[in-house]
C-alpha cells in the first residue's frame, strides 16, 4: 500500500529532477548561445560558408576586321580526391579509363590515385603522415576530350574525380603574326606575359580576380539567404590591331618563298598605310608556332623589326636628296661627276658598285650612286643633313607598342667626324630599325607629313561594349617646298623602270616608287665583305600610295643585291595586296584621264 506522502515525495523528486534538467539545459544553453557564441558561430559559418575564387577572361586580340588572333580556349583540369576514389581495383579502373581517353601514362595516374597519405616534414624536422585530398591527374585537357571523359566517368559512377574548368591561351592562326603577338606562360596559376603585344598590354588585357563568399547547402550550391559577398569580375580589354589578316597571310606566304629561294639567316617585311601610319601586316622569319612550346627557339621569337638595327645602305639616299631638293640646293637635273666609281674623300675611298660618269640627281637615285649622293650631302652641309634625317624620324622611336624598341644608332651632330657627312646619306655608320625605315618612307610617300606608326586600332571593353579608338593622323609637313615630294617620287619611280636598280620590283600596271639597299653587315667594327642585308622599300601606286612595303633579307645566299633578292618579293606581295585592296592600275587611270 502506498501512502499519499510517498506519492507526494516522489512527485517532488521528479519535479526536482526535471527542474534540475531544465536548469542544466538553461546553463548549457547559456554556455552555448552566450559564452561560446562567437566560437561556435565561427565554426558553423566556416562549415556552411564557401569561398570561390573567380577570375574573368583575359582580353582577346583581333585584327582590324575582327578576326581572332589570340583567344581563350576552354579546357579542364582533371583532379581527384584519393580518399573518395576507392580501393585499388577502382583506382586501376579510373586510371585505365583516363589514360586510354587522353593517351597518358596509366601507371602514373594510378600512382597518384593511390597516394592516400603523404609524409610531411615539419620545421623542427619531425615527420608525420597527412591525408591527401587533392591530386592532379591531367591538366589543361581539351574541352571536347574533357566533356567526353566527364560523361564516361559519370556513366561508370566513379566517385572522387572532378573536372575543374579553366581556359588556356590559344593562337588559332599558329605562326601568323606570332613575333608581334607574343605569348604567355603559366607560373603555377599565374599568367605571365613573355613578350610582344601580350606583354605590352598585359595590364590592360588581364582580368580581375575576386573572392566570392556565400552560404552553401550540403551539395555546395549557393543559398539565397545568409551572409554572402558576391563581387563581379571584370574581363580584360579586347585589343583590335591595325593588322589585316588577309594581307598578313599574303606577306607571310611571299616571305616564305623568299626564304626558300635565298636561304637568308633572317628576313622581314612590313606593310603600312602611309597616311595613317597603320601597320597592315608585318612578318619575320625565322618564326615559331606559339601553340607548340616544346620546339620553340628564343632566336625565332625575338622581335627583329623593333629590336634589331641594320645599316640601311642606299635606302637612305632619297632622304638626303629630298632634303637637298627642299633646301633648293639641287634640282632633279643638277649634274654631278661620279668619278668613274672611285672617289677619295677625307682620306678614305668611296666606291660605287659600278663605274658611273656624270649623272643628274634623278640618275643618281636611279643608279644608286654613293659618290653622287655624298657630293650632294657635302653641298647641303652637316647641319642641314642632320636636320633632314632627324625630321624623317631617324634616331627616335616609332611609337609602336612593342617593347623593347630600339631608337637606332644616329650620332648627334657634335659627334660627327669628317666622314659622317659622306657616309650617313648612303646609309653607312647609321643604324635603323626596320620600323624606323618604314616610317621614314611613309613620310616620303604621304607628301612629307610626319607621323608615328600604329599597331593598335581600337580597344574594346567586353563588359560594357565601350570602344576606344586610338587617335592618329599625320603631323606637320617636314618639307618647306610642296613640290619636293613630287620631285623625289618622280626620281624614285625611275628605280623600278628600265635602267633602274630594281626593275624586278615593278608591278604591271602600277608606278612603283622605291629604293634598293644592299648594305654590308658591320661585324666587330668592320664592314663584312661577305655578309649583307638585301633590302627593297617602296610604295605603290607611287603618286597616291596605298601602302609602303619593306622587304629585307639578312645574309641571303647566292646573291646579296636588294634589287635581286628583295625586289621580286616586293613585286609579288605588292601585286597581290593591290588586288586585294582593289586598287585601280595607273594605266587605267591614265586612260580615264585621256
Amino acid at each position: 500500500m502506498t501512502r499519499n506522502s510517498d506519492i507526494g515525495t516522489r512527485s517532488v523528486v521528479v519535479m526536482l529532477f526535471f527542474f534540475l534538467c531544465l536548469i542544466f539545459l538553461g546553463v548549457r544553453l547559456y554556455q552555448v548561445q552566450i559564452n561560446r557564441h562567437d566560437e561556435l558561430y565561427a565554426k558553423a559559418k566556416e562549415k556552411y560558408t564557401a569561398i570561390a575564387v573567380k577570375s574573368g577572361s583575359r582580353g582577346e586580340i583581333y585584327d582590324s576586321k575582327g578576326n581572332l588572333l589570340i583567344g581563350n580556349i576552354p579546357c579542364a583540369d582533371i583532379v581527384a580526391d584519393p580518399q573518395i576514389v576507392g580501393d585499388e581495383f577502382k583506382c586501376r579502373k579510373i586510371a585505365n579509363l583516363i589514360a586510354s581517353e587522353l593517351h597518358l601514362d596509366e601507371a602514373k595516374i594510378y600512382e597518384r590515385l593511390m597516394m592516400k597519405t603523404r609524409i610531411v616534414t615539419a620545421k623542427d624536422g619531425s615527420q608525420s603522415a597527412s591525408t591527401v585530398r587533392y591530386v592532379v591527374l591531367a591538366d589543361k585537357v581539351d574541352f571536347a576530350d574533357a566533356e567526353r571523359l566527364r560523361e564516361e566517368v559519370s556513366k561508370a559512377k566513379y566517385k572522387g574525380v572532378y573536372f575543374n574548368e579553366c581556359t588556356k591561351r590559344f593562337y588559332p592562326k599558329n605562326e601568323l603574326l606570332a613575333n608581334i603577338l607574343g605569348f604567355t606562360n603559366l607560373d603555377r596559376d599565374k599568367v605571365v606575359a613573355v613578350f610582344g603585344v601580350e606583354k605590352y598590354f598585359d595590364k590592360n588585357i588581364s582580368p580581375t580576380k575576386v573572392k566570392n563568399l556565400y552560404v552553401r547547402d550540403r551539395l555546395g550550391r549557393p543559398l539565397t539567404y545568409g551572409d554572402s559577398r558576391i563581387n563581379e569580375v571584370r574581363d580584360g580589354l579586347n585589343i583590335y590591331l591595325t593588322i589585316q589578316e588577309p594581307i598578313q597571310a599574303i606577306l607571310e606566304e611571299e616571305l616564305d618563298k623568299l626564304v626558300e629561294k635565298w636561304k637568308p639567316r633572317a628576313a622581314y617585311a612590313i606593310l603600312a598605310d602611309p597616311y595613317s601610319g597603320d601597320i597592315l601586316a608585318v612578318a619575320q622569319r625565322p618564326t615559331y608556332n606559339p601553340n607548340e612550346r616544346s620546339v620553340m627557339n628564343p632566336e625565332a621569337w625575338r622581335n627583329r623589326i623593333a629590336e634589331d638595327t641594320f645599316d640601311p645602305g642606299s635606302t637612305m639616299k632619297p632622304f638626303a636628296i629630298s632634303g637637298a631638293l627642299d633646301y633648293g640646293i639641287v634640282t632633279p637635273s643638277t649634274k654631278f661627276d661620279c668619278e668613274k666609281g672611285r672617289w677619295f674623300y677625307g682620306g678614305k675611298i668611296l666606291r660605287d658598285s659600278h663605274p658611273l660618269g656624270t649623272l643628274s640627281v634623278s640618275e643618281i637615285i636611279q643608279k644608286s650612286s654613293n659618290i653622287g649622293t655624298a657630293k650632294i650631302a657635302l653641298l647641303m652641309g652637316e647641319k642641314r643633313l642632320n636636320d633632314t634625317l632627324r625630321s624623317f624620324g631617324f634616331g627616335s622611336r616609332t611609337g609602336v607598342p612593342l617593347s623593347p624598341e630600339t631608337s637606332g644608332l644616329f650620332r648627334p651632330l657634335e659627334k660627327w667626324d669628317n666622314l659622317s657627312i659622306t657616309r650617313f646619306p648612303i646609309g653607312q655608320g647609321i643604324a635603323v630599325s626596320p620600323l624606323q625605315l618604314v616610317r621614314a618612307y611613309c613620310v616620303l610617300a604621304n607628301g612629307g607629313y610626319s607621323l608615328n606608326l600604329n599597331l593598335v586600332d581600337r580597344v574594346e571593353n567586353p563588359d560594357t561594349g565601350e570602344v576606344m579608338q586610338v587617335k592618329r593622323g599625320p603631323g606637320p609637313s617636314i618639307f618647306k617646298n610642296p613640290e619636293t615630294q613630287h620631285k623625289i617620287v618622280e626620281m624614285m619611280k625611275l628605280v623600278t623602270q628600265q635602267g633602274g636598280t630594281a626593275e624586278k620590283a615593278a608591278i604591271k600596271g602600277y608606278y612603283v616608287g622605291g629604293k634598293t639597299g644592299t648594305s654590308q653587315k658591320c661585324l666587330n667594327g668592320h664592314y663584312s665583305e661577305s655578309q649583307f642585308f638585301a633590302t627593297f622599300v617602296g610604295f605603290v601606286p607611287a603618286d597616291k600610295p596605298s601602302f609602303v612595303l619593306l622587304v629585307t633579307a639578312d645574309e641571303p645566299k647566292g646573291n646579296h643585291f636588294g634589287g635581286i633578292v628583295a625586289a621580286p618579293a616586293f613585286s609579288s606581295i605588292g601585286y597581290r595586296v593591290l588586288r586585294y585592296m582593289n586598287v585601280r592600275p595607273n594605266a587605267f587611270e591614265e586612260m580615264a584621264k585621256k
Partner: protein
Amino acid sequence: MNLSAKTPRRNEAKRKPVALHNSSVLPATFKVFIFLLAIFVTVTARVSYNQKAESLNRESLRVREKIHRLEREIANLRIEKEKLSSWPHISDKLVALNLPLRTPDPQQVKRLIMIAKDGGIQAPASTPARKSISKRETSKLRNL
C-alpha cells in the same frame, strides 16, 4: 469499547471538485490556439516561401550552369572556326587536296563591278523594269 472502521474524512471541502468556469477557459484556450495557429501559419509560410525560393534558386543555378556550359562550347567552336578559316590552314588543305587556287577564266566571270571615277565601287546597273506602252507609243516607235 465502541470501535468503528471508518476512514476519517479529512478536509471534506478539498475533495469537492472545483467548479470549472467554462465561460472563462474556452476563450483563453481559443486565444492560445489562435496564437499558436498564427505562429504555425507564419512559420509554415516562411518555410514554404524559403523552399520555393531555394527551389527556384536551384532551377536558376541549373539554367546558369547550362548557359555556362553552352558558352564554353560556343567559345570552343569559335576558336575551332577561327582555326579552320585561317589562311595557313586553308592553304595547307589546298596543297594536301591538290586544289590550287587560280584566277577565273573570262567565261567564268558572272558579275563585273564597275569602278567609279572617284575610286568607289558602283553596283552594276540593274535591268530597267519593263513597262507597258500604249498603242500610240508603239506606232511612234514603228515610225522611227
